[in-house]
Structures are given as structure tokens and as C-alpha cells.
């Protein structure tokens, strides 16, 4: 694994914290009625996407599920425009027409934000197909929730990716529950990465609460895929602190279970590492936290000041 510098550590910490502070504000705005519909928070899972972010190249592509706010922040997208989209404003990434689950940024090779469980998997495989077709050396990282791992099109995509040796890195974010159904109540065989074995796709389990483990695995897997050997699967074990969506009281799991995960919080692990390595003082990190809170506050201000889409926007973007 490439040795992480001081600035790498601070970047990791800052992105993870930014995602968490953003999601906390999203929850608040949802409660206040500024965000509507379905809203799926990423709190607890930050180490996954930020770990992968550290291994990504500018022209690589990313496609993910509807739990996408954190993924967008990690792709370097502007929290202002993300928040504007969540609040249905014209300055949002999808001009207010996509919402929380359907956000895109073609300029940043971020291809959504997909609302249908599993649908992003063939799509990400097709984006990887295009990288290969064009002969560039880029790869597509395709995120999959554990719930989608029982969805037929995922296996169709695995088969195609393996058959045609496509440069796609599948990252299963196993947060233990597909909505309210625990993985072992949904999947016959709970080692989800093993489901690639039938297609000859290599894979492994990764500790998704520890960003350093994620970076190590993602770097190795990314190199494998980029070298032209075909797809690879990372099953990243993680945990969401909140319910499936804002309307989920999460009664299907115990408080003890939640507390256990909170005690090994992924952001705290990074904080301790930074302090241990003396890359920053506690005071520095507190100040960084304040800066991030301020940045997110500005994002909220920006969003709430942004206009709702004008009525003529109803009929635009149906066809090009």
C-alpha cells in the first residue's frame, strides 16, 4: 500500500467528517420539511467511500445506489449543489428533477445515484465496457448494496463482466440490512463476495469501519482491474447508524448492536491515528470540524436561497 502522508490523513479525516456533518444536516432539513421523498443517509459508512476515493483516478467512473450523498462528496462534488438538489432547487446537480436518489455529474464521471435496487450494476458494467471499447486505461467502480446481491441482474452483469473481462470494480457495501431485512434472512450464503466465484471473479472481505483497510484493499483491487484482468469484488463490511431511510425507526435491530458499532466509529479511528502520528493537534481537528460545520451551513444557506425550478422546467430534458 502506498504510504499515506500527513495531507492524505487530513484529507481522509476531512472528507469523512464532511460527509457526516452533511448527513446530519440533511436529517435536520428532512425533519423541517425542506427535503422530501426518500432520503437515505450514509452516517457510519464514511470509511468505505472515502477509502476508495484515495485510490481513484480523475477519469475513472463511479456509479452507485440511492445512498449517494456521501459518494458525491467523496467524488469532490460541491456540497452546495448536492444540498440544493436534496431541497429540490434549480441549482441542484439535477436541477431539482432528480432529488436525493438521482444525482449525477457527468463532468466528474459520476453516473448516479440510481433508485432501482440493482439497476446500477449492469449500468456500471456498461460504463466499464465503454472504457475498454475506447481503449483508455480507466475503470468503473460500481457500488452495490447488500440487498441488491439477491437481485438477478447483478449476476447477469457479473457474468458479462467476467466473460468480456471488463474493467469494473464491484464494491459491495454490506451494511447488514437490506431495508429491514438482515443479510442472513435474505441471502443463502452470507459471504456475498463469494457469489462472484461461479463466474471466476476474485473477491475478498474488507473491514469497512477502518478506512486504512479499505484503502489497502481498494488499491490492490483497483490495480488488478486496471491491468486488464477483468472484474473484482470487494465486500466491504460496514454499518449504517441511521435507519434505511428517514422514515425507518430501525426496530429490527438492537440498540446494543448500534452502540457496538458506534464504539468503533470510523471517524474516531482516523482521528486517533492523526493524533498518534502527531499530524495535527486535538485543537487543529476541532477547528477543522468547525470549518466543516460552517461549510455545510453555507451549503444549506445556498440551497435554501436557491429558487425552485420554474414551471417551464417541467417539460425540459425529456428529450435532447
Amino acid at each position, binding site marked *: 500500500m502506498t504510504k499515506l502522508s500527513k495531507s492524505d490523513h487530513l484529507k481522509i479525516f476531512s472528507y469523512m467528517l464532511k460527509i457526516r456533518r452533511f448527513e446530519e444536516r440533511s436529517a435536520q432539513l428532512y425533519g423541517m420539511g425542506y427535503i422530501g421523498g426518500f432520503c437515505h443517509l450514509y452516517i457510519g459508512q464514511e470509511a468505505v467511500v472515502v477509502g476508495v476515493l484515495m485510490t481513484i483516478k480523475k477519469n475513472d467512473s463511479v*456509479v452507485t445506489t440511492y445512498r449517494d450523498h456521501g459518494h458525491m462528496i467523496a467524488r469532490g462534488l460541491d456540497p452546495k449543489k448536492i444540498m440544493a438538489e436534496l431541497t429540490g432547487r434549480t441549482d441542484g*446537480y439535477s*436541477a431539482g*428533477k432528480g432529488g436525493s436518489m438521482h444525482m449525477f455529474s*457527468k463532468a466528474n464521471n459520476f453516473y448516479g445515484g440510481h433508485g*432501482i435496487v440493482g439497476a446500477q450494476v449492469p449500468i456500471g458494467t456498461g*460504463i466499464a465496457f*465503454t*472504457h475498454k471499447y475506447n481503449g483508455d486505461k480507466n475503470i468503473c467502480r460500481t457500488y452495490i448494496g447488500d440487498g441488491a446481491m439477491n437481485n438477478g441482474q447483478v449476476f447477469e452483469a457479473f457474468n458479462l463482466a467476467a466473460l468480456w473481462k471488463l474493467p469494473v470494480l464491484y464494491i459491495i457495501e454490506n451494511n447488514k440490512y437490506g431495508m429491514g431485512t438482515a443479510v442472513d434472512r435474505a441471502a443463502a450464503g452470507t459471504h456475498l463476495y463469494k457469489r462472484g466465484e461461479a463466474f471466476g471473479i476474485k473477491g475478498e472481505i474488507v473491514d469497512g469501519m477502518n478506512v486504512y483497510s479499505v484503502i489497502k484493499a481498494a488499491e490492490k483491487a483497483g490495480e488488478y482491474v486496471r491491468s486488464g484482468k477483468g472484474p473484482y469484488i470487494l465486500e466491504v463490511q460496514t454499518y449504517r447508524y441511521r435507519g434505511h431511510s428517514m422514515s425507518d425507526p430501525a426496530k429490527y435491530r438492537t440498540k446494543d448492536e448500534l452502540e457496538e458499532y458506534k464504539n468503533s466509529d470510523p471517524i474516531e479511528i482516523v482521528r486517533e491515528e492523526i493524533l498518534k502520528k502527531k499530524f495535527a493537534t486535538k485543537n487543529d481537528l476541532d477547528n477543522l470540524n468547525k470549518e466543516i460545520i460552517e461549510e455545510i451551513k453555507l451549503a444549506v444557506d445556498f440551497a435554501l436561497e436557491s429558487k425552485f425550478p420554474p414551471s417551464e422546467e417541467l417539460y425540459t*430534458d425529456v428529450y435532447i
Partner: protein
Amino acid sequence: MSTEILMPALSPTMTEGNLTKWLVKEGQEIKAGDVIAEIETDKATMEVETVDEGFIEKLLYEEGDNNIPVNKPIALISTAKNTSTQKMDQNIEDFSKIENQEKIEIKENKPISENVNTDLNKDQITMRQAIRDTIAEEMRKDKKVFILGEEVAEYQGAYKVTQGLLDEFGKKRVIDTPISEHGFTGLAVGAAFKGLFPIVEFMTFNFSMQAIDQIINSAAKTLYMSGGQINCPIVFRGPNGAAAQVAAQHSQDFSSWYAHVPGLKVIAPSTPLNAKGLLREAIRDPNPVIFLENEILYGLKGKVSSDLNFTIPFGMANIAKEGKDTTIVTYSIMLHKSLEAAKILKDKHNLDIEVIDLQSLRPLDSETIIKSVKKTNRVVTVEESWPFASVGSEIVNIVQKNAFDYLDAPIIKVNSADVPMPYSSELEKLYLPQVDDIVKAVKEVNYI
């Protein structure tokens, strides 16, 4: 005593075949199961085995003879050696009246529209070839265009539409997929998001139901959901509607299903000429296009344009026949039945029928329909789909809203029966709209 070997029907829609090769000679002894000839069908070249035993008495066709009707004798077998060759012409005649229930008389192509000027070639080609040629022409023009689907490459196309494409463009751009519609459709949608121009062949549109989530939720909606950032330049094509006796799961018209969806364009060609112009337009269109071909029409011949930029704009209907007494609005295969009905109505009832071929179902050319209704004051819609919420239903709505005062009779819709497609040929005939049904409907709106 002689036994006849008849030209076999080797596919559901085969009405005639070409004798490409004899593998036996006159006088040769044959046993049941021996391969005696190679026959080229509308889909492939197949070997024909004999079920009878004896000696080949006479080969009635030569290698290279084309368009031999199904059930016509192609060879005679005798039980004894050295049977003298008899004159068989009389017997052969008896078999020449075999009915081809779905055979469609080829109509001369009318000028496609006043808006499209193009010089047509002298030679006629089939719809199948017109589609193939257009795909090849566009693939030559732009390396980002590629085709994928089941059996499109090495098999040369389940319906031979992609014949020869693998040889010319190689396996990178002509891609055989597993039987995995949901997967490869989603993959193609992803490729289109990323900037390629995929042509997805569904072996038939019946199988597109496996992939309909990717077509509607991903291909059709992402431009809108991304605020105009990500378009999906893709063509979904293949045969749609009834073939011949393939029953309920393989005979279904999806025109109104897809035409219902904003974000999709839905096209239904009826002739080789408009197939070329519309398919080229579809491949070049930056939006997802559903291109509904018809298996029965693949063999239909007509003149086409060789202009490599000949396109027919979407949203433009073609007045296939001008008339003043009643408007028939139709598309795809039903155009031909409608034209047949129009001829009968002229001959028997002196009614001058205007036949509008929609060509494009979404966008729909309402203007041409309304203009025609204002002239004829009577409308019949003819389509192969089920009646409930069909394209015809939408046309009824458009007409009542825009030309209510011009109507001299209620509009009649001619559709298939509102049941799953039966297998038996007699029931199948009842299920599908027939020329007589159209004649009857037109008479009814004329109170005859």
C-alpha cells in the same frame, strides 16, 4: 409408385425457400434420416433430411433455384430402382395453390411524403436487407456505433438481419450476448451514458420485458433525472408483434407499452424504404429509440434510397394512399392489410379511402391525422395490438379533441382480440385483424 418430397417449412414464417445444394443424385438409394439437400430459408440455410426410403427418381429443381413455395414437391422417391421418369408437371401444379395465410402482397412504395425527396434505386430489396444495410452504413460512418444481442454475430442473426456484420466489423463491434436481456440491456444503457451508440437487438420484443426496467427507468428517465446532463443514445430493435403460430408468449405488440413512456421515441416501419430512413434517424438520434420491426415484413421487398444521408424525421406520418371518403390510421404490418381493404372498398363500394401510415408512434404526427379527418369526416384506426389503451385509443382522443365537429360517425378501432394469442392457426386468424375486419369497420363508419 412414387413418393414426393415437399419443400419443407423450416421456420414459422417461411413461405418459400431457395434450393442451395442437392446432396443426392438421381438413382441414388436413400434411407430415412439421410440429408438430401440444403435449403435457404428466410432465416438460415438448413439441411433437409428424408423420412422416406427408396431411390431418388427425379430431382424437380436444380441447385440455385429460388423462391420455391413451401409444400411444392422438390424430388420424387421410388421404391424400386430404375423407375422411369414420368412427366410430373401435372402433379406439381396441384401443389402450387398452397395458401400462405400471412403472405403479404407487395405494394409499390408510394412517395414517402412531400417533405422527403429522394431518388430510389431500381432494384428492390427486402426489409431485412434494408435494416441490415442501414446498420452497416452507420457502423462504417461512426466507430462508436456497435450492435449487441443474442445470436447477432456468429449465427448471423436469428432472423438474418445482422448477416455479414461480424465479418465486416469484427467481434468488438458485433457482439453475441448470453441469453441475459436484463443484464446486456443495462450494460448497453451504461455504454450509451458513457458516450457510445449501442444498437440492442432483441431476438423478439417479447424478451424486452425481461429488460423493461432498464429501458424505462434507466434509458428513458435519466436525461430528465440528471437535469439534462446524461443522455442515452441507444436503439432497441427487433421483431415485434405476431409472427405465425408462435402463440401467446411470443406474439405480442408492444407499441402502446413503449409509446406510453416520455423519454422514449417509438418507431414502427412498414416498408424497406421507410425502414431505412427511420432506422438511420434512430441510430443518429441522441435519445433512446424503440424500433419495432415486424417479422412477417422482413421478406417484404421494395425500392430504397441509397443516399447515405437519407433519413425520415420522426413525428412525420406518411399518407400511403390519398382519398376523400374515410381515413384509416395505421402502422407497421397493418398498413398492408389496410391498403388491401382500401382496394376492396374502392372496387365494391366506390369508397375512396385515405390511408395514413404513422411510421412514428412517439412523437406522433397529430397534424396529418387531423387534417385528413377534416377532409374525410370518418376515421378507422387499424393496429395489431390489444384494444385497451392502444395507440388507436390515443388517436381517438386526438381526433375527438381537435376535429369533433368534423366527425360524421363515431370512430371505430380495429385491434386484435382482447385475449392472449392462441396457437391454433384458425384461432390465430380470428385473433388478428384481417382485411375483412377493416372493410367491415369502414363500411360501418359510412353507414353501409
